[in-house]
């Protein structure tokens, strides 16, 4: 009898240990990814020089005297993301207000599945549509020789960030206590005034989080951008072919070697640091939203 009891205890301990190890896989993955990106990204920055690398304006990795300046990529990523946010966020935000507050319940569930569908469309499909619809359209409308440009990337990205912006904003807006809205309505405000002056301010952390999430999506998107942005390492300009941080990594990876390859890992490290910054902001916003709920 005693034997089985101690066996039982051994088993429980073993199971606990197994679950602990499984629980730590996520932490281990993050650590390994971070360490690997630093190990493979730092050496090239050292060789090129951090100033030349981050602020150099020319990227000619395949020429006889290669130059590795990634300022064009950084600025393109920043401008591209900003453009996508300027177009995508207002539409997404208003659509979220509609879904969360205005829509009758039948339309609401239809709209939610529409947004779910937008989120589920693979990025290569967005890229393909961008390549065959948006790029030729830009070429015709603005009468330029090649439509593959920063503008095309911005338009594609602004559609791609819509689902993230809408979903998170809707959740935040739905979490606003009904009493707030009832009080506002009782004071004589109209419904639409209540939504915009009471519900939206009450959900502002969540809405801010949705925008940051959209920024993260836009800055990290690679395949769709690769298919529409033309992929030449120019300084960013709306109607020129440009290269983003993500596409800089993806486009040369398959044939790179030596310092060029190491420099690509350094670009990935810069991108990773951008994402980490965005994640930190997102976490802070989410936490603030959570605290507001508790009050």
């Amino acid at each position, binding site marked *: 009898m005693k034997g089985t009891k101690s066996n039982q205890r051994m088993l429980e301990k073993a199971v606990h240990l197994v679950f602990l190890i499984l*629980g730590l896989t996520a932490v281990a*993955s993050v650590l390994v990814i971070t360490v690997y990106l630093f190990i493979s990204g730092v050496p090239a920055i050292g060789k090129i020089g951090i100033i030349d690398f981050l602020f150099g304006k020319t990227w000619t990795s395949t020429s006889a005297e290669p130059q590795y300046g990634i300022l064009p990529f950084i600025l393109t990523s920043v401008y591209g993301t900003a453009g996508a946010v300027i177009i995508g966020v207002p539409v997404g935000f208003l659509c979220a207000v509609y879904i969360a507050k205005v829509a009758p319940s039948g339309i609401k569930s239809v709209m939610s599945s529409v947004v779910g569908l937008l989120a589920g469309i693979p990025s*290569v499909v967005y890229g393909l549509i961008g390549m065959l619809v948006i790029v030729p359209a830009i070429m015709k409308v603005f009468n330029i020789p090649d439509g593959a440009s920063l503008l095309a990337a911005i338009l594609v990205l602004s559609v791609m960030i819509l689902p993230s912006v809408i979903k998170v904003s809707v959740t935040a807006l739905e979490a606003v206590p009904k009493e707030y809205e009832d009080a506002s309505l009782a004071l004589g405000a109209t419904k639409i005034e209540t939504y915009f002056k009471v519900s939206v301010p009450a959900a502002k952390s969540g809405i801010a989080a949705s925008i940051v999430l959209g920024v993260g999506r836009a800055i990290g998107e*690679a395949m769709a951008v690769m298919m529409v942005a033309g992929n030449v390492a120019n300084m960013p300009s709306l109607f020129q072919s440009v290269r983003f941080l993500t596409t800089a990594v993806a486009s040369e990876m398959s044939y790179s070697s030596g310092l060029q390859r190491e420099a690509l890992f350094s670009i990935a490290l810069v991108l990773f640091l951008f994402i980490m910054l965005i994640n930190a902001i997102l976490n802070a916003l989410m936490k603030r939203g959570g605290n507001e709920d508790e009050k």
Partner: protein
Amino acid sequence: MRRKIKNTFLAAITHFAAVLVAALSFSLVAYVLIKGIPNISWELLSTKPSYLKGTIGILPDILNTVYLVIATLLIVLPLGVGSAVYLTEYAKSRRLKAAIEFACETLSGIPSIIYGLAGMLIFCQFFKLGTSLLAGALTLVVMNLPTIIRTTQESLKTVPISYRDGAFALGAGKWRVIRTVVLPSSVDGIITGCILSVGRILGESAALLFTAGVAHSMNGFFDAMKSSGASLTVSMYVYAKERGEFETAFAIAAILMILTLIINLCATLVGRYFERRRKI
């Protein structure tokens, strides 16, 4: 009067935004299906590409995608469900719990191109798996880990404490309670997690480009795991961007779009089914 104009304006732009999003989604789906479905033929679906005959077939890509889904789920399910069980049933240290949750949030924010690069460095080079479906699947495992953990955790939280207490009171050990009471009641979360992951695996391309490669050879499951193979998304990218075969690209896009529709429908139906069952 000004107030009235302002109200009308706000109402108008809100409705306009919603109509815009709906119209955009509808036309995206319609465009891809109209351009793609006529190009789907039995020959395309059932053969592999042949340079001799100059024909294109996507059967190897379909098989590779199926293999990737199976391999990824087989590995990620035990890991993700185990993590979720640890978080809700075992973890006592608040710090450790916060660390795991923070790690999950970080993982879900990392863009797929970074996963592709890290997967290439870690699985292909360090573990010497080479460019292979297994390396691709392992990369996808890390990507999907947060999804499985979150959905399982959410459904574990809804298992009433009284179920656990009841089982403990009958003298069951912790492992037995987890096995017989906790896990069976969390099947809904696990299934939802699987559906979401399948959707993500089907749509993933950047992470697979450098880990699973672009080959079109046809293999059985275990041989395929060891060799390079393109998924549907990756081969669509190659056909569209590098070879200019837009007809094939649209055919694949249409297939992906139909799969996305099916997966979204499944997710909604499963969600509704379990919600109803929980109320009973």
